[in-house]
């Protein structure tokens, strides 16, 4: 690609072409934020992952359809007993700096991320893991505190780092992994460059150099794509889809939901909560607010691609008359409820908030919409004693498992949950520990049905991820929203 500005850039590009026999294939990716660090185990940061997902690998991976497959592991792990899993590793793989990838590296990686003093933000994904030990050079056992059926999914999240270099102070600034791309440079504030790893165990990738740029403003990102400076941009706004050369979408990981407080006077009435659910025309929300780039949530917060998704549930029906009748018969007509939300934190958050408020207002309730600054919002969301009647939040289900969204939104005493259903809390804990896959799926089926019937929350939409792509790129994004450059190609 020849950048359109500056004669010197053109001259340089020409000089580069002359000095190299084949044309080096570069692509430019525009992210909405700069990675906070390139230590793949420290933070829970989507921009960091966008880069690290190409440098590092985990024991497990997912194919483009989202199914769990072995990554650095040679095969699916075997469960030795209730709390021990055994992984056989691929042999002959080394880190970019030459350190071998073996059982010691896995043990180091596991123990590093779970160490309390390391204070990883990813700890919530690995809370059940006790430690790891090497059996032989290519066999590792990972132990959990209780039964943990989704350990393989957790290991899809945990990136493997080199034991010697991992202790180097430079590690977070100049990463070394086993992945298809090697770290090449980081100009803080402006660019990160990765280069193809010619020795990658699964074949050398097609694109030689990847440049990541950080552009917070959606309009500026779009301009970068339109001017030909960028090949892929993330978080394209739905209204820009028709403008860009190419837009690709994939079912995303985010679901918007309104958690209702079952302990407050008005929202404590089950009929009122039911009315709040059926008062909303989710199809219209998806169509008008998101331009069709979202689907009505199927009556649950669990992502459709996640383990524990209840296939039997359908989206709450849209029945404005029924909702009005319920509000009337429950004696709540004219009462005021508070709906708390955000503006600008999540895609179209304010628009969803206002649309929902209008639907609810139409049932005969008075809806008081409040938008707080993020810190103040979180304080109210996490305060069980002074919970607003309804809080809109967007949950992102990176691990693709029902446990986190369910415990966060429904388990008494956790995160955003706002009910006093001790039995439900017990169920959620039980499902977390259940090792039998069938039984576990069945438990989630019951839990999701229970919260559906009890209307503990108002699931709204499953949002799609939209990427803007230049005309020369060929790429199909993945269900797990990872930007895997090895899966991209350029046709020129």
């Amino acid at each position, binding site marked *: 690609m020849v*950048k*359109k*500005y*500056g004669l*010197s*850039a053109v001259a340089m590009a020409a000089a580069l072409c002359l000095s190299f026999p084949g044309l080096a294939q570069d692509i430019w990716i525009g992210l909405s*934020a*700069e990675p*906070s*660090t390139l*230590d793949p185990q*420290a*933070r*829970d940061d989507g921009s960091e992952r966008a880069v690290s997902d190409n440098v590092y690998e985990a024991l497990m991976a997912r194919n483009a359809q989202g199914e769990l497959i072995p990554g650095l592991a040679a095969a699916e792990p075997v469960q030795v007993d209730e709390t021990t899993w055994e992984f056989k590793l691929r042999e002959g793989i080394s880190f970019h700096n030459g350190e071998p990838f073996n059982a010691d590296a896995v043990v180091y990686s596991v123990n590093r991320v779970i160490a*309390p003093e390391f*204070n990883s*933000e990813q*700890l*919530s994904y690995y*809370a059940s893991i006790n430690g790891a030990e090497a059996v032989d050079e290519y066999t590792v056992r990972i132990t959990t505190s209780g039964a943990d059926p989704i350990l393989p999914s957790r290991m899809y999240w945990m990136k493997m780092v080199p034991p010697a270099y991992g202790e180097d102070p430079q590690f*977070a*600034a100049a990463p070394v992994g086993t992945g298809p791309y090697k770290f090449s440079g980081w*100009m*803080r*504030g*402006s*660019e990160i460059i990765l280069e193809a790893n010619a020795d990658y165990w699964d074949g050398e990738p097609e694109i030689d150099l990847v440049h990541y*740029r*950080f*552009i*917070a*403003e959606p*309009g*500026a990102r779009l*301009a*970068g794509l*339109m*001017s*030909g*400076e960028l090949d892929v941009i993330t978080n394209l706004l739905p209204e820009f889809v028709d403008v860009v050369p190419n837009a690709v979408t994939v079912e995303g990981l985010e679901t918007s939901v309104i958690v209702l407080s079952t302990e407050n006077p008005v929202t404590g009435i089950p009929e009122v909560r039911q009315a709040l659910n059926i008062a909303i025309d989710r199809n219209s929300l998806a169509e008008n607010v998101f331009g069709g780039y979202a689907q009505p949530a199927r009556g649950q917060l669990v992502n459709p691609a996640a383990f524990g998704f209840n296939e039997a549930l359908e989206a709450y029906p849209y029945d404005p008359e029924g909702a009005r009748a319920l509000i009337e018969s429950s004696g709540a007509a004219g009462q005021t409820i508070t709906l708390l939300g955000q503006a600008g934190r999540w895609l179209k958050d304010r628009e969803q908030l206002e649309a929902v408020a209008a639907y609810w207002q139409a049932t005969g309730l008075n809806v008081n919409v409040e938008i707080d*600054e*993020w*810190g*103040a*919002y*979180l*304080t109210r*969301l*996490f305060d069980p004693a002074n919970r607003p009647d309804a809080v809109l*939040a967007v*949950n*992102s289900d990176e691990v693709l498992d029902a446990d*986190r*969204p369910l*415990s*966060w939104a429904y388990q008494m*005493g*956790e*995160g*955003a949950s706002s009910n006093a259903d001790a039995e439900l809390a017990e169920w959620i804990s039980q499902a977390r520990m259940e090792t039998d896959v069938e039984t576990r799926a069945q438990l989630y089926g019951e839990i999701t049905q229970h919260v559906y019937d009890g209307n503990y929350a108002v699931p709204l939409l499953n949002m799609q991820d939209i990427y803007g792509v230049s005309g020369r790129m060929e790429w199909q994004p993945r269900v797990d929203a990872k930007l895997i450059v090895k899966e991209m190609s350029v046709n020129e």
Partner: protein
Amino acid sequence: MGSYIVRRLWQGILVVLAVTTIVFVVTRLVGNPVDIMLPLSATTEQRAAFAHQIGLDRPILEQFGTFVWDAIHLDFGDSLWQRRAAMEVVLERLPNTLLLLVSGIGTAIVLSLPLGTIAALRPGGIVDRLIVGLGLLGLSLPQFWVGLMLIITFSVVFGLLPTSGIGTPAHIILPSIAMALPSLARLSMLVRSAMLDELNKQYIQTARAKGMPLHRIVTVHGFRNILAGFLTMSGWEVIYALAGFSVVVETVFAWPGLGQTALQAIQRSDLFLLQAIVFCVAILIVLINLALDIIYKLVDPRIDLN
């Protein structure tokens, strides 16, 4: 003058202390930093552990004591967001903002003198109306919108300049223009009205009457007398930009400066980074003010600094 500078520096230290104390208190009043730092779905247990880790579970006075003690040693702790020394982040971004300031506000300062003067020479003339009209436009168009329009015109449609980012000299042109416009408008209006006042004074009339050429009247008498006011306003433009007005331009053009970093630190509730940024900006502003005072004295010896 020496004792004056010492006194001003002493006051400056008090100002910096007061500002950082206010930031310390405010960042802890608005919301719980732990909630903001951790993922939305973190468990209650993890929140408590994190609060302990960064010391937020200790009494506020103890936290403040530690903060002051470390700040005296120029240690502002590690940025929670970037996990490296907060001061390192600040010192990395500060030069970018200064570069933008020099090229943006600098252009405004340099251009506003001739523009304002030309307008003042023939008040009500076509050139004057044009400059005043453009000035009003520059003042009333939001910087955000101007920035995007510049990008669309020069980068997307004509493909002449990069849309955003930093690196080559070409990268700085558009952000500088967006940065300069409102300042240029304010400063030229100031020069125009001050110069008009000056040119109507009697000694200027006398100078004209005795046949002194116009360019000498303007440069020797006019400029000299409006300079003090012009410098004050120019200093203010720099201070405005430093104290946060560069955020808009830096965000639109993805310019990795201090303003954008401050915004991100606020969004991520990165207390330690925020404290370091405020500390540095406060020091810079104190120094700029001091420099302005000294320049006054040099420009107009009649000014009594005491």
